[in-house]
């Protein structure tokens, strides 16, 4: 028996009317160094009386190093928690004056991921013009356990509001720290085939993080929850 925390990315391209144009999926292969730094920060935590060794610094989207931290103790003014990936809609974040590019983010770069990647190669920022994507909120489901593997899904609907087609080749998962609003990439994958998003089309991206508790199960092909059909209707 071997266990691994892994997953897959599934995507569905739809017209603005909801007609499915394309579906695809690929194994989720690319946790980067920041992910491990995040685990290290979790496992070291903080202790004012007996400080643990200084954690490794994460690298934000601009390439600057910083220490992941926990902002404010419970009971004091502020939020006691660390960071998160469940970003609200880009428009809402923008309205609040907060950074908009975090959660699931897509880009047009296709260079292979290396362990020290700290940003997408060529991100589509939030917006509605050419070179931008309109990001809806990032949804995260609670963990589910089916007896073989435990998983939770991170999902986001992304709209190409521009009047031209735009190509998606890479998908990233970006967390945002509470106290500094610093954002750090924890995973990035290049799609096997570029997805050309026609003007006004929608791309639903689902990242499934799965803890596989059995050896090398093929876990993604039969997952209907992300759009894979196991049957086809025929008339004869």
């Amino acid at each position, binding site marked *: 028996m071997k266990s691994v925390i892994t997953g897959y990315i599934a995507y569905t391209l739809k017209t603005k009317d909801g007609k499915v144009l394309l579906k695809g999926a690929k194994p989720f292969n690319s946790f980067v160094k920041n992910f491990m730094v995040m685990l290290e920060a979790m496992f070291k935590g903080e*202790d004012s009386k007996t400080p643990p060794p200084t954690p490794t610094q994460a690298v934000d989207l601009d390439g600057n190093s910083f220490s992941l931290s926990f902002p404010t103790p419970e009971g004091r003014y502020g939020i006691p928690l660390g960071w998160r990936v469940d970003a609200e809609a880009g428009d809402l974040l923008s309205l609040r004056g907060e950074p908009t590019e975090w959660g699931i983010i897509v880009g047009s770069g296709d260079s292979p991921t290396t*362990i020290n990647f700290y940003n997408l190669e060529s991100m589509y920022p939030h917006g509605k013009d050419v070179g931008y994507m309109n990001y809806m909120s990032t949804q995260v489901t609670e963990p589910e356990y089916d007896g073989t593997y435990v998983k939770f899904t991170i999902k986001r609907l992304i709209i190409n509001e521009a009047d031209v087609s735009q190509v998606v080749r890479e998908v990233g998962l970006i967390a945002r720290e509470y106290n500094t609003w610093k954002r750090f990439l924890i995973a990035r994958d290049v799609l096997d085939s570029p997805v050309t998003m026609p003007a006004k089309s929608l791309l639903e991206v689902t990242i499934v993080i799965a803890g596989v508790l059995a050896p*090398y199960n093929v876990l993604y092909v039969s997952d209907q929850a992300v759009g894979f059909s*196991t049957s086809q209707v025929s008339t004869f």
Partner: protein
Amino acid sequence: MNVDKPIKSSTHHSLGLSTRVTIKSEMQKRQVELKGLQASIVLTLKDENEKVVEKKELPANSFVLNFMRLLYTALTASSYNVKDTSGATVSAKLSKVEKHVSYEVEYRRTEYERIVAGYQAWCPKEDDSHGILVGNGTATVNPEDYNLSSKIPNGTDSGQLIYLASEVEETGVVGNEAHLFLKRSFINHSGAGITVREIGLAVRQFSPETDILIIRDLLTEFEVPDNYTLDTQYTLEVAV
């Protein structure tokens, strides 16, 4: 890597009937090498002169459900119910807490505020509540496990090992892999050999304060003679 597509059924055959049926398509399956977060264990046995007498490296096979639950809370800044090492259901949350500490030694009272945070996998010596733990139980690993099957307690009495500090090192990078080492040593001063059959990793959270097991592995029997030291190491690793 391309996803296997369902086998498509034929779309139209005229048999003079108009029955509409659903044809089950058989899923194609193939093995893929899953990447992601993986773990391994190194066990090193040293004699009373610190000489290495045995070393084993083996895969750590058993992230338990609690690991995924804690990961979920860390990625969403939310809470989720888990079973702590006592078997009680608690709300897990990656948070920061201010504690008032008060104790008395030799009629002298000490009080201070202590701020703590995280899911701490490190702990001081002689604390066998969290960090890397060892045991002699043989129960098969179950994803729902919340403690070792039979933990070997800290101490120098029969059947006990002295727990040294559990440590979390810095994230390292080699090639296209990033790794994190967690280490702990155990000294046998019990007066007789002790057999280690299981190992695990538990973390401490602070709101509420409790310990949560996140990895448990069974080992082939590993004998620690009296006055020998067992060094243990979990390696967590991601690769692209």
